[in-house]
């Protein structure tokens, strides 16, 4: 099969690769770029474990062909911490105990980030809607919602948080 020349920015870094055009964005991130913080849970867009931010939008990277990301910017969970310092979303999830097995956590945190970029003061309902595409089997969601509320308040008080 003819190779596809893929150029995209991943976590701010320009990437150029020749790939099989049938690869999913998830495969390129995990298997070629070794960004394994993005997880595969179902492979069919049900669970949201593979969520990444494509430009300004939360997407399931298992449902996006890698060539669809050509010329665009991708943010994965690895792109959030700056010089080893956790960002407010990560900090908030840790503080309230929103992390148990951790497998849904990267997707949840990215969903929170997209929400707060669009809506800095979300209600509980806004939060529930924003994470409705991300399944968690451990927490019962209460702590995750609380973590996102705290992230919103941290973000408000802490200047200089980078935008997706």
């Amino acid at each position: 099969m003819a190779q596809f020349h893929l150029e995209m920015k991943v976590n701010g870094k320009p990437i150029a690769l020749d790939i099989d055009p049938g690869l999913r964005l998830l495969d390129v991130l995990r298997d070629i770029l070794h960004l394994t913080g993005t997880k595969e849970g179902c492979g069919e867009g049900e669970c949201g474990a593979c969520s990444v931010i494509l430009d300004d939008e939360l997407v399931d990277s298992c449902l996006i062909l890698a060539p669809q990301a050509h010329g665009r910017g991708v943010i994965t969970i690895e792109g959030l911490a700056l010089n080893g310092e956790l960002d407010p979303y990560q900090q908030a999830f840790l503080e309230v105990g929103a992390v148990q097995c951790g497998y849904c956590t990267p997707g949840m945190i990215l969903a929170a980030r997209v929400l707060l970029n669009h809506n800095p003061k979300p209600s509980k309902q806004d939060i529930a809607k924003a994470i409705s595409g991300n399944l968690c089997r451990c927490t019962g969601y209460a702590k995750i919602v609380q973590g996102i509320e705290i992230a919103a308040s941290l973000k408000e008080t802490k200047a200089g948080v980078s935008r997706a």
Partner: protein
Amino acid sequence: MPEYNIIGKSVQRIDGPRKVSGEAQYAADLDIPGALCLKVLRSKVAHALLQGIDTREALKVPGVVGIFTHVDIPGINSYGIIVKDQPALTNRVRFKGDAIALVAAEDEASANKALRLIKVSLQDLSPIYDIREAMREDAPAIHETGNILSVYKVKKGDVESAFKQADVVIPGSYTTQRVEHCYIETEAGVAYMDNDMLVIKAGTQNPHYDRRDVARVLGLAMNKLRIIQTTTGGGFGGKLDISVQCFLGLAALKLGRPVKIAYDRQESFVATGKRHPFFIDYITAANREGKLLAVKVRIVGDTGAYASYGPATLLRAAVHATGPYEVPNVDIEAFCVYTNNPFSGAMRGFGTPQMAFACESQLDLVAQAVNISPLEIRRRNIFQKGSLTATQQKLDVSVGIGKTLEAAWEKALQVMPGLGDENK
């Protein structure tokens, strides 16, 4: 109150930072250069004898390095936490999804192609899906020991006399469904040889038990095998059983090369344990004040093709059948039964949630019959300090459930102001 450094403090989990940053490595995240991809050929029928497997065409697929079946198992081809009844690769199919062959290939596409080219000839046996059918004396035995795997009984007092003296005797039948754990991380792992030491890294809840069973199946001394639990993306009881461990060990040992396996969601659904479906017949006797006098309970748990944690689950079902209530006379029997359904094992609550559904439903019916509120009937029967359980354990230290009951009712009124009073 004395000041402690942990108790009473909010302590951040030690694996938290790695999990929020994406650095935590789960089994499928492990990258071993040159690792072979493993795939499992699974049965599409529920009950059959294997007559032959022809792997010649499959072995010709470029990239295929090895194909293994039951004849390649070096040790004893059976494992299981309580009963060693589950083969790693089977020559007798007991459920739709039983593992028949293992393919090792350089890449996933070649492994999948080989799976399609393996020819399996089976002699069909009639499958038993219905648990009552499986319990009949003339039912074909799914395992040599027969279909009734275990029976646990809890008996106390004189139930029949209590039934005669009771003002109300309420019978009820309950069924509960099979449930998949659906941890977001599917089963995965890697294995490699470190000189003469076999190393298996996998998502699991049970590395020590895994080690015993893998050593048994592979005929290895325990000190030639390491099982290392990777960060595990949820288990809920479902990762207590062997899943990928024997496959990984077998291929790495036979081929001397690193190997990797990851189930997709469908394989995780098909191949792994479930919550036991229960069939419960429950008779409750009480006096006109709603004080419980006796229960007679028959529980049948469908453990499917293999025992897994079935006997322990049904034991827990038996001892929890009365719920957190005082019942002076009990006659409880719990049966764990094989069928050709997917196998059932441990899942959150371990048989107790199924019993709570039946027991609590019965209490509501008794409350209705003696015309008191559902809350009141629980107040009148709930365990207190000094209560005796169905197994004659005296609860003589601390029993908090009475307070919990009242607190739950207060909270219910708070969050649902339209609820009205408890007699409504």
